[in-house]
């Protein structure tokens, strides 16, 4: 009897081990481009089901709210997003695939969050939204949602090259007390566990994402800060140029993967 019990335990253990390799063999459709695997493919079946159903996806609460904000007039200029951009479904289509872009006035890279706040302060004469506020996250997700399914396609040539190079250098640079670079987890060891956490390729195509651990929607820069803290490094501020450059590098690294915003991850 006892032998039988041990045998069944062993079989159980083997089955558990093989699920990981089965997952890799699965046909991931658009979520796999060449050897690039979206974070979707590392999520559990249950988590993927939440993302697949737009109703069940809790991130849609923030997106719904942002949809209302799109046409609500704010600031001294008496404008809303809609005043200049009309329907988001047309004007914002494809935006998420090409950001971050170079802002000529600022001579720096700007991502979607920063562009939204730039619009608010310069065009609407309204107050900028705070980073990680429900409004900014929601609007970013709403804008990026309009490009859902379109492949990421950022420009890294011409005047953008130095920023791309900086982002790439950041990615391969060791930092923190653990002396680790991004690549040590996400390039060398995706699909393996670090303690209880399954490491993904660290693709950026699904952000802002609803993370079950956070119990709310969060930005890519929040994820960066979390990663930096995990390797005992001093995180940079939200929207810091270092992080925007890294965002550019990550997007080019995930070139071709579909925009998944708002994704759901554990």
């Amino acid at each position, binding site marked *: 009897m006892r032998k039988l019990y041990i045998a069944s335990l062993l079989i159980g253990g083997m089955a558990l081990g093989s699920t990981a390799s089965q997952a890799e063999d699965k046909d991931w459709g658009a979520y796999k481009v060449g050897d690039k695997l979206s974070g979707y493919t590392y999520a559990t079946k249950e988590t993927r089901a939440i993302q697949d159903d737009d*109703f*069940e996806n*809790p991130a*849609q*609460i*923030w997106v*719904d*709210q942002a949809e209302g904000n799109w046409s609500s007039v704010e600031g001294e200029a008496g404008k809303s997003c809609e005043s200049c951009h009309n329907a988001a479904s047309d004007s914002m289509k494809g935006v998420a695939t090409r950001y971050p872009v170079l802002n000529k006035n600022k001579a720096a890279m700007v991502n979607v969050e920063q562009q939204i706040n730039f619009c608010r302060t310069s065009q609407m004469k309204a107050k900028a939204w705070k980073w990680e506020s*429900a409004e900014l996250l929601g609007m970013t997700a709403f804008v990026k949602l309009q490009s859902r399914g379109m492949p990421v396609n950022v420009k890294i040539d011409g005047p953008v090259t130095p920023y791309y190079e900086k982002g790439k250098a950041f990615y391969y640079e060791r930092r923190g007390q653990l002396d680790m670079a991004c690549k040590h987890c996400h390039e060398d060891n995706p699909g393996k566990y670090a303690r209880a956490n399954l490491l993904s390729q660290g693709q950026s195509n699904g952000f802002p994402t609803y993370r*079950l651990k956070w*119990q*709310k929607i969060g930005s890519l820069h929040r994820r960066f800060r979390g990663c930096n803290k995990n390797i005992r490094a001093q995180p940079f501020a939200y929207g810091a140029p270092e992080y925007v450059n890294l965002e550019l590098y990550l997007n080019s690294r995930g070139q071709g993967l579909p925009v998944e915003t708002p994704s759901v991850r554990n």
Partner: protein
Amino acid sequence: MAKVKARVKSPKSVKKGEVFQVKTLISHKMESGRRKNKKTGENIPRMIINSFACNYNGKEVFASDWHPAVSANPYMAFHVRAVDSGTLDFMWKDDSGKEYKKSAKIAVT
């Protein structure tokens, strides 16, 4: 998020006698009461939705009590048998006594 928002998804029309699914989602922080304020060390008071109910033409067809282990922004799906055309009224109640309501129309053919 300060503003609580409820979402409900149910079919617009169903056949009589058919069992259909209703999905609900509400934004709520669901503060469990077990967390501490990092600076002061004091407990953050519990603030969760403690009950949810669905009335179908005034008759209760689904009800549940929720406890602190329920996640933030709780999702609840359940099945109802179609009887008559009318409304489905949903009600969430949280610890402050606040009630959040939402209703959906349903046509039974």
